[in-house]
């Protein structure tokens, strides 16, 4: 088969060991508390790469850190004020074991940070990244990428993409950098046969049938577009929201940020940017306390409309990738699945 390869599972660690010489390696690692997190790996022999569980974090923090310094400034006197760019070159990094939802989320972040104005920090990190994906044979309990059309398999956007076929991975590439890796480390790869590709397709069909959540996404998208979401839905969800920001922080496609100064001495400081959440009441508050958003009744509205209405209108696809993380984190019961299904069940 042209452009499709096999990687024996026994060869995975040796291959990663080689790649780690060139790249900073980031992969899902099971830590001592039993949590699986995307982690920058220092010593490959001392960690347990976990491809069975969904990582609790996504790749967001690696391209768009929770807090970062945009530049530093000093103002030794009123009549001087200088700004120094922060040159923090991120090393070439290889992200391994990225599931389709998280890969789709990176492609979405590319639009946010690079389409019009080009965010310098994101651009630098993204240019230095290699994405090695992993298709999902076994969707998790809160997954609904089948309806957001960002999984469980994906066929673009990665450098290399793996599909688990039991004792081996089927390997595909979508970018020249992926191809280069295969060429450079030929000893690990064998050409795939027709049977392997058939097996991959079989896995895909099976995976598609394994989703347990029923999420009426298309119906909700239609209702939003037609303005048919009952007011009571916004009201009920906004009242329940505890303003914790957890959904936005954990979400791989929530990218809103705030910018502020941190004074580090009498005459110097840093301009920082940090993750923000549109569900916070301060998000839209203006000088004098005036707020154009009725927080009590509509605090939660922007998050869902943005993902399921405005982005659909603009890019023809929702910017929720169905990873299910907010479903697991929200203790107020106002996650996106709750919203979607409420929208569709409530009579308007």
């Amino acid at each position, binding site marked *: 088969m042209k452009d499709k390869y096999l990687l024996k599972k026994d060869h995975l660690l040796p291959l990663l060991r080689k790649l780690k010489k060139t790249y900073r390696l980031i992969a899902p690692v099971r830590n001592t508390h039993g949590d699986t997190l995307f982690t920058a790996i220092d010593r490959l022999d001392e960690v347990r790469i976990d491809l069975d569980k969904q990582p609790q974090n996504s790749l967001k923090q690696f391209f768009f850190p929770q807090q970062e310094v945009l530049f530093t400034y000093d103002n030794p006197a009123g009549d001087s004020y200088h700004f120094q760019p922060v040159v923090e070159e991120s090393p070439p990094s290889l992200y391994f074991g990225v599931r389709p939802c998280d890969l789709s989320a990176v492609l979405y972040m590319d639009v946010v940070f690079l389409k019009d104005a080009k965010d310098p920090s994101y651009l630098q990190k993204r240019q230095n990244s290699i994405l090695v994906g992993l298709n999902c044979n076994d969707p998790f309990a809160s997954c609904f990428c089948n309806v957001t059309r960002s999984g469980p398999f994906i066929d673009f956007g990665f450098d290399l993409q793996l599909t688990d076929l039991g004792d081996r991975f089927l390997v595909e590439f979508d970018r020249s950098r992926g191809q280069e890796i295969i060429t450079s480390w030929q000893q690990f790869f064998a050409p795939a046969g027709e049977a392997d590709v058939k097996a991959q397709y079989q896995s895909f069909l099976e995976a598609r049938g394994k989703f347990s959540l029923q999420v009426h996404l298309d119906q909700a998208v239609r209702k939003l577009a037609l303005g048919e979401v009952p007011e009571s839905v916004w009201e009920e969800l906004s009242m329940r929201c505890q303003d914790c920001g957890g959904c936005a922080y954990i979400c791989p496609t929530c990218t809103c940020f705030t910018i502020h100064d941190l004074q580090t001495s009498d005459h110097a400081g840093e301009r920082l940017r940090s993750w923000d959440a549109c569900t916070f009441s301060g998000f*839209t508050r203006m000088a004098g306390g005036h707020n154009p958003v009725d927080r009590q009744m509509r605090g939660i509205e922007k998050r869902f409309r943005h993902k399921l209405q405005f982005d659909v*209108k603009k890019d023809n696809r929702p910017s929720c990738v169905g990873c299910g993380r907010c479903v697991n984190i929200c203790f107020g019961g106002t996650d996106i699945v709750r919203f979607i299904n409420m929208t569709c069940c409530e009579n308007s």
Partner: protein
Amino acid sequence: MPSQSKDLYLPRPAEIREVIEENSQIKTFALSFIDREYQDRFSYAPGQFLMVSVPHCGEAPISVSSTPVSGGAIHLSVRRAGRLTAAMHGMRKGDVVGLRGPYGRPFPMAELAGRDLLFVAGGIGLAPLRSVINTCLAAGHGRRITILYGSRTPSDIAFKADLTSWGETANVSCLLTVDRAEPGWQGEVGLVTALLAQCRLEPDDAKALLCGPPMMIRAVLAELAERGFADEDIITTMERHMKCGVGICRHCHMDDKLVCRDGPVFTLQELKQLKVMELLG
């Protein structure tokens, strides 16, 4: 002047050349970039805004209130509203702030040429319109210009020098009103909408530009609709909490639009496509 990617968020130092006290709440700062060469290349259009940095206070979006003249001072008229603007009010000639921009979609200057123009402003709202008015006059706008300006009290009237000079211009009529009179005030008392009633307007051949508090905007919009202005001939600016100014941070959303990138200048026609608090009341 699109920013280079690597310094998208990086301000440039600009020196305060002059501070004009417009009233107890508003000061106009005349600024120029310390980098002379950059100052000479710098250009902007009426309606655009700059992100202003003040040490330890972060940034705030402020509209340019001056007329773009090559190499000329950049005017920012700032109302004391909170932390940054208060700190700026404490600054003097020779002090330095940071500026980046200009950002945002300007007023459609080409469409204004050859039309009667109605400007309605309240308080600090005259700042961006001042840029438009002076730019039109500098370009020799020959049609009728009507300026209606509302302030809280007579001592709150800002931009007095401009108001006087506009009042003395042949094709310009400039009417003022205050919410509350003070001893010695001979002029109008009441809403700007009352001034509107006194104006001769030809809605088919005019453009109306409004800028001010939401209450005022709503009242004026209702009046203009009554007078037969078409939605596409009514232009206003929107204000939202803003952080990046370049369409990434998403603070200034209005439905699927961003005020920093798609605005801050909008026609009423455009705003009616959105759910905008200012119009809904």
